């Protein structure tokens, strides 16, 4: 790979351009290291996001050589085989500046998909007993680790084709709540996730599953929502 990385970084807003930088190669270098180097030593005006640096928060998600990734968990050696890197903000979202995308629409769809817990009317007398081995708990567990990084959303073709599509993360979260036996909001939630903006627009490309850094499978969750909404429709509850 040589001694220098040739890095093209998106600068500006939607009407911006790729600007080249030369970054020295280091042992065990991540893409986040590269971005940090550019901002500290080459151009302090570069805007980008990070927080934990250790693959827990998802803040550093960006488009690296055309693919959405967590830059702190992407070793340069894995992606810059010919010594070249192209860095852009997450796709499918408006650009605030440089490598920082506006996540508002992503979280707003989370709300629209009713991805929040709805408690039952009265405070229960005792703790809910939820055996971890039950099918519903296992289904919820499979999707519960999502930290809302936006990588799946940025990788989804349907999000690109339909601006109203709620997207894999929001629908995955809704599915975990559908499977939460303590939740009381399913009647409204199933109405919110059904239809053209919801689960029925998913065509199982599984790009979300391919790219999710936590190996969550939103396609499977969305398939669950398809079954749940179908049963609701057949029972006249939708």
């Amino acid at each position: 790979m040589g001694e220098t990385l040739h890095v093209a970084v998106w600068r500006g807003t939607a009407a911006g351009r790729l600007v080249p930088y030369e970054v020295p190669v280091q042992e065990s270098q991540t893409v986040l290291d590269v971005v940090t180097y550019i901002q500290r030593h080459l151009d302090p005006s570069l805007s980008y996001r990070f927080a934990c640096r250790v693959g827990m928060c998802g803040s550093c998600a960006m488009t690296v050589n055309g693919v959405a990734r967590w830059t702190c968990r992407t070793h340069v050696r894995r992606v810059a085989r010919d010594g070249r890197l192209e860095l852009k903000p997450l796709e499918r979202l408006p650009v605030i500046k440089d490598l920082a995308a506006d996540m508002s629409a992503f979280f707003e769809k989370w709300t629209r998909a009713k991805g929040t817990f709805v408690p039952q009317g009265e405070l229960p007398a005792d703790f809910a007993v939820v055996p971890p081995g039950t099918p519903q708990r296992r289904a919820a567990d499979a999707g519960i680790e999502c930290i809302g990084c936006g990588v799946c959303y940025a990788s989804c073709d349907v999000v690109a084709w339909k601006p109203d599509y709620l997207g894999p993360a929001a629908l995955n979260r809704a599915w975990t709540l559908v499977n939460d036996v303590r939740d009381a909001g399913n009647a409204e939630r199933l109405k919110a996730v059904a239809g053209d903006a919801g689960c029925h627009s998913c065509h199982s490309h599984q790009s979300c599953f391919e790219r999710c850094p936590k190996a969550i499978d939103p396609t499977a969750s969305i398939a669950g929502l398809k079954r749940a909404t179908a049963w609701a429709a057949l029972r006249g509850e939708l």
Partner: protein
Amino acid sequence: MSWRARNHPNFWAFAVHRLSGLLLAIFLPFHFWALGTAITGAARLDAFLAWSEQPLVKLAEVGLVTLLALHLTGGLRLLAIELLAWRDWQKTAVSLSAGVSLAVGLLFLLNIF
């Protein structure tokens, strides 16, 4: 969106399924029209079948049978994903689908010559 991000088996399974469905949906009315010539008697249908003996038409028929098999096996994969909810098999299912479809097309090809 970047083709580098799209280039994985399950995306191609979708692309093949959609393209085959589109082509079959366009083909279907012609298929029914050709068969419908039988209403006026066997002679018109035979005339059509004689026309279809040309090598290019036969090749197109092999293509159509393969498209049908591809759409069927791709559809079975989708029904499994949506109704059965197993997850770890998908990539294998894609290869299996492709393999079976090509076998069917080949079988058809061998039988018309």
